Every structure is written in structure tokens, then in C-alpha cells.
């Protein structure tokens, strides 16, 4: 039984306490929403959970192992942040080549881009794409490695209804295969989740 359990998580940013003691139990195959207003620490929480921020109090256990001690934890999650990890002055296909190196595997470019109907922009520079297209490209990183946990930071921003339903389907099929998804949002989202963390 793989579950992510968060215990009394506290985190300081500078002098102010951003995360004020958060606890949650997220079981296999569940989707959690993190809600809160701007600047309430949603992104901080995701960065803590993905152990990019190591300076916190409390414990985070995944699969009954503390993520601080688990050296392999880095291979168990995908983090889609608000920055999209795309080089603005390079074309889509060249960016995918860079990802190929980072993820250490061959990418079948055409079938990957098919996912969000991005085949037409393959030779365009990133800077000429719309915000929505950049977001879709960024979300394609989820398909590059199969990991049990997905952290999605504001994934629905900029997406049109069609792409949104594609993403929702993606998340559902991820859940069905036993994966955990944690999504931050600051808008009311008509998304059926298994639980909420409110900051």
C-alpha cells in the first residue's frame, strides 16, 4: 500500500511561517487539491513535498519511508511547475531533444505531440507559441517517465476546455493505475477530488 502521509508540516520563508502545521494522508489512486489564495504557500508546499525545499519541520512519508532519507525519491515524482522548462529561443523539436537527454530516453516525438494536438507547431520557436500551447508542452513531461506521484502547480491555467478534458482524463487514468496526483489551484475548480488541503 503506497501512501503519502504528511505530518504537522511547518515551513518558514524568511521570518514568516508559511505552512502552519499541515497534516494529510493521501492514499494510492487519490487526487488531492491544494486550495488557497495568492501567496498562501501553495507552491511552497509542492516544493517541500518534492523535497526541493529541505528546510522544514514535520515529516513526510512516502511508502513508509521519510523522503529526506530516500535517495531514490527523486525518481518517484514528476513536478510540473509554473515555469515550463522550455528554452524560448529554440524550436519545439529541439526542446524535446534536450528533454530526451534530461530524462535519459528516446522520445517518439510525433505520438507525444499528438496527445494535445501540437503536431503543427513542431518546428516553431517556443517564443511564438501561445501560453496555452506552452502549458500543454510542459504537461507532456508527465508522459516521459512513469512515476507514482504527480505534483501539478496550477495545471489548468491557460488551457481551453478540450485540452482541460484531456488532462482530466490523464489524471484519472493515472489514478486508476494507482498513482497519486496533487494539484494546486486558486480558482474554484469543478474537479472531483478525494480530498482537499486548504491553506
Amino acid at each position, binding site marked *: 500500500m503506497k501512501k503519502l502521509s504528511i505530518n504537522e508540516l511547518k515551513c518558514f520563508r524568511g521570518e514568516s511561517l508559511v505552512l502552519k502545521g499541515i497534516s494529510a494522508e493521501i492514499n494510492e489512486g487519490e487526487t488531492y487539491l491544494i486550495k488557497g489564495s495568492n501567496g498562501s504557500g501553495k507552491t511552497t508546499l509542492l516544493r517541500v513535498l518534492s523535497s526541493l525545499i529541505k528546510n522544514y519541520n514535520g515529516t513526510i512519508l512516502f511508502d513508509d519511508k521519510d523522503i529526506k532519507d530516500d535517495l531514490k525519491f527523486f525518481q518517484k515524482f514528476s513536478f510540473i511547475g509554473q515555469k515550463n522548462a522550455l*528554452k*524560448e529561443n529554440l524550436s519545439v523539436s529541439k526542446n524535446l531533444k534536450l528533454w530526451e*537527454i534530461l530524462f535519459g530516453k528516446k522520445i517518439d516525438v510525433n505520438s507525444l505531440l499528438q496527445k494535445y494536438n501540437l503536431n503543427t507547431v513542431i518546428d516553431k520557436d517556443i517564443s511564438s507559441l501561445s501560453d496555452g500551447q506552452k502549458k500543454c508542452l510542459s504537461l507532456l513531461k508527465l508522459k516521459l517517465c512513469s512515476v507514482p506521484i504527480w505534483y501539478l502547480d496550477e495545471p489548468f491555467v491557460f488551457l481551453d476546455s478540450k485540452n482541460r478534458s484531456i488532462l482530466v482524463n490523464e489524471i484519472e487514468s493515472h489514478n486508476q493505475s494507482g498513482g497519486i496526483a496533487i494539484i494546486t489551484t486558486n480558482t474554484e475548480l469543478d474537479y472531483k477530488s478525494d480530498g482537499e488541503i486548504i491553506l
Partner: protein
Amino acid sequence: MKSLYDLINRDLKIAFFTSSNFLFTGSFYILVVVLIPFIFGSDSEQLRVIFKGIIWISISLSILLTLERIFYSDYEDGSLDLILQRYNSLEIIICAKFIAHWIINCLPLIVILPFLSLLFQLSFSDIFPILINLVIGSTGMVFVATFVSALTLGAKRTIFLKGIILIPLLVPFIIFGVDPHSWPILIALSMMSFVISIYASSYGLRLYGE
């Protein structure tokens, strides 16, 4: 070892895809050197002396201009998150940055230097000590540039600030680099800056992560 190779490969690919590839850094050096006779006249005896100095000025300028490419561009678009996640050994990331940055920025100068020296009627025996110093000194300068780049990740994008931080740290390399007999001191300096750079850069990257 594979991850080191991968990261170097990635940086080289970025350099190759964008305008910052070897041809362009090489032409930068050639253009800086071409300016010398325009300023100092065509007296070849004087030019030879100035040429040896201009090499060091051009290499420190090129290191300053490309400082933000070491970590800042990756930080800005979020690739650094991905790199930190995929390769959780900071030392390997930093070493990869050293090597990639040195290949992109300093290797072109070292390759074209023998040809450039023909323009100033310098023989190979004249140029050989400079070449040795340049190889050692530029390595040290890249070490310094890397930790400056890692430490100033959170700063606003001001190249002048980074220049004020970087150039005093480069002064010892330039002083010993110009003297053809001081390569042992240069080696010592480079080794010291390697050690400092590993510590300081990983400190900077860790702070950025927090």
C-alpha cells in the same frame, strides 16, 4: 559518469542550437583582437606586447558576458528544477557546468590562438607559454564564474553587479597569466578556486532550492 556526460551533452547542444556556438565565440575573440591595430597603430613591435594582454581582457570579458548562461538561463525557465530533480548530486551538476562552459567559451580561443598569433608575427615558441597559461588560467576563471553565477541566482538580472563581483576575483588569474613563467602559481590558484567553487556553487544551488 553517464549523468556527467549527459549534462555536458545537454549544455553543448543548447550552445550548438543557439547563437552561442563555437563559431560565434571564436569570431568574438577574432573581432576583439582585430580592434587592436585600429587603436594602437600598426607598429608590430608594440602590437605584439599589447596582443598578449588583449587575450586576457577578451577572455575575461567573454566569461563575464556569458556568466548568465551557466545557471541563470536554466533557473529562469525552470530547467534547473528538472536538473536538480533528475541528478541529485550537486557536485556532478557543477562539474558538468565547468566542463561545458569551458568548452564553449575558452576552447575556441585556445584553438584559434596559434592562427591569431600569425597576424602579429609571433612564432610558435613565443605563443606556447601563453597557450599553457591560457589553458590553466581560463579553467580557473571558469571555476570562479560558476560560483558567482550560482550565488547570484536570486539577484535581479544586472550584469554590472555580477561584473563588480566577478572581476576582482579574476584579477589574480590575469596577473599571473600574463607572466609566462608563473604557471605553477596559476595551477595552485586554479586548484584552490576549484575547491572553493564546488563548495560555493553547491551552497548557492542549495539556497536556490530552499
